[in-house]
């Protein structure tokens, strides 16, 4: 699953800062975000609403609306090419060809007036110059790949005729058409029922291994990534607060936010808890960069030093980093 440690990253996001300005309000969506994905590696970006996890994904696809998004700095290198500020022609070539993306709600991503066959074949015609006939054949093969029953009949069907789970499979087929080296999945199962979620996650895992592609899974659900991702990046209010190997993050989280999230997550089979550990307060929106830890108002360990600056990511253990003043300090 994981490439050799020495391999150059497939995706390398470094010190990325992005602000949004809309309706007279400014939001600092990303503030110095860095993470990387190796070829064939599965990385989960976990966060709650307002954490910036979706913005991080969209910026990798060059999909941020230019009139509201202001890039404050940083870089996004994919297969060695800088994406930030790249020409639309370059981005267009990457999207749907080298990088595939699937979203939470396939109904909004699929075109309601085109047949399933036309939509799955579209990237092949667009990026590969495939003939209509060849594209149709490939579309059929792709629908089989995502294990849709009766693919021949589906080619002529429209999105509204399909169930939510089937639409998600169609979107996956479309994203995989040009055999991307990276698939970005933004909450791909959040709108689905739990039994269908299990099907889609198993399908994604199977395809990821079969095709050897890297994946970035964006989710709010720590349990969902437990078996799926090799590494987890935890985001809060536009910053990466912790990242490391999945087993480490889930068993020995170092950042108080990750610790709080895990403690607040209910696990089926544990019976009734006397009380669920709460993280007090609400997720905050940061309007401009502030020189303090963004989590400190909700943090049980908050100290005056938390107001002295934004804590940088510091090593906890091999491959495990956290952005908290307590990390690396002598707890005596």
């Amino acid at each position: 699953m994981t490439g050799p440690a020495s391999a150059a990253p497939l995706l390398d996001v470094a010190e990325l800062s992005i602000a949004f300005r809309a309706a007279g309000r400014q939001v600092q969506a990303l503030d110095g975000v860095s993470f990387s994905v190796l070829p064939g590696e599965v990385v989960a970006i976990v966060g709650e609403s307002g954490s910036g996890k979706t913005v991080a994904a969209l910026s990798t696809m060059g999909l941020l609306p230019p009139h509201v998004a202001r890039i404050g700095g940083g870089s996004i290198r994919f297969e060695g090419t800088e994406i930030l500020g790249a020409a639309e022609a370059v981005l267009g070539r990457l999207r749907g060809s080298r990088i595939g993306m699937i979203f939470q709600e396939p109904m909004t991503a699929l075109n309601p007036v085109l047949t399933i066959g036309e939509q799955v074949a579209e990237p092949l015609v667009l990026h590969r110059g495939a003939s209509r006939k060849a594209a149709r054949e490939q579309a059929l093969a792709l629908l089989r790949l995502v294990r849709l029953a009766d693919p021949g009949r589906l080619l002529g069907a429209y999105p509204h005729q399909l169930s939510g789970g089937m639409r998600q499979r169609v979107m996956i087929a479309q994203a995989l058409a040009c055999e991307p080296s990276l698939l970005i999945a933004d909450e791909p199962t959040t709108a689905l029922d739990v039994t269908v979620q299990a099907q889609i996650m198993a399908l994604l895992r199977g395809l990821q291994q079969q095709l050897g592609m890297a994946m970035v899974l964006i989710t709010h659900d720590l349990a969902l990534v437990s078996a799926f991702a090799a590494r987890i990046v935890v985001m809060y209010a536009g910053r990466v607060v912790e990242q490391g190997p999945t087993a480490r993050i889930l068993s020995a989280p170092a950042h108080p936010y990750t610790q709080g999230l895990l403690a607040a997550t209910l696990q089926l089979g544990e019976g009734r808890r006397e009380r669920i550990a709460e993280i007090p307060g609400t997720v905050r929106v940061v309007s401009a960069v502030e020189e303090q830890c963004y989590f400190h108002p909700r943090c049980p360990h908050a100290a005056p030093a938390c107001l002295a600056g934004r804590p940088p990511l510091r090593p906890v253990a091999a491959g495990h980093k956290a952005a908290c003043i307590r990390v690396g300090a002598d707890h005596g």
Partner: protein
Amino acid sequence: MAEAPLVEAAGLAVRYGVGADAVTAVAGVDLAIARGEVLGLVGESGCGKSTLGRAILRLVPVHGGRVRFDGTDITDLPERALRPLRPRMQIVFQDPFAALNPRKTVGQAVGDPLHAVLGLDRTMAEMKVAALLARVGLLPEHAERLPHEFSGGQRQRIGIARALALDPDFIVCDEPVSALDVSVRAQVLNLLADIRAERGLAMLFISHDLSVVEHIADRVAVMYLGRIVESGPARDLFAGPRHPYTRALVASVPRIGATDDTAVPIEGDPPSPRSVPAGCRFRSRCPRALPCCAAAEPPLAVDGAGRLLACFNP
């Protein structure tokens, strides 16, 4: 149980639409909720769980069966006769914002029923609103603000305060924490558990999230395409699901610490309530279906372990 249940449904049925377009959302449900008891209702989208919750409160028309509240058969009661009972049965929605008038302050939203139903004067109503807001973790000055000024978690607190205003005995909670972030969800679940304990409230807690239901419910009913297929004590039911559908649901829930993500407990999507299979409704997705499952619908009956179960081949 010696005491009569607070809420009771027998053979309850709800249909939407007419003629060929008619959909039976609830197809003959029996359930009982004791005073102070929390019954969890789980199932996937389209199974009819929200409709069932609304039918019990007479918020949607009932087409068959009976609903009793505290000994009174309310199935056919005209709205006038229902009015004295209304304060005692309330509902909390998934999205309280949709249920709140955007132009009314929070104080008005929570306080209006106090004037209208209890006839409290302005000062008394304001004092009660302040107490309710304090109870759900909001500040007195929040009464002056409009719903859009609040976060999702705060809005749900407002929804709970409003449901509590008339001192109900019974609350239907319809996916009350499903739209909330994990860190905020814990706050609202703790609040609901505290209030339930303080007031001895009975609840029908509707959720697609099994772990939330396991935490808050005393008993659980599992719904599939308009029928209850299994029901029993929360802890037992999730530790040892008996119906093939409940087993598939439980096995599908992602778990922290899981290492295998290739298991597919059950294939296919829940069928549409427009095309319910004959015989057992679950048979089209069931790995244990037998020929007899097509011939008749299994009744919900007590099995050897004291579990209510609707299956010919558990």
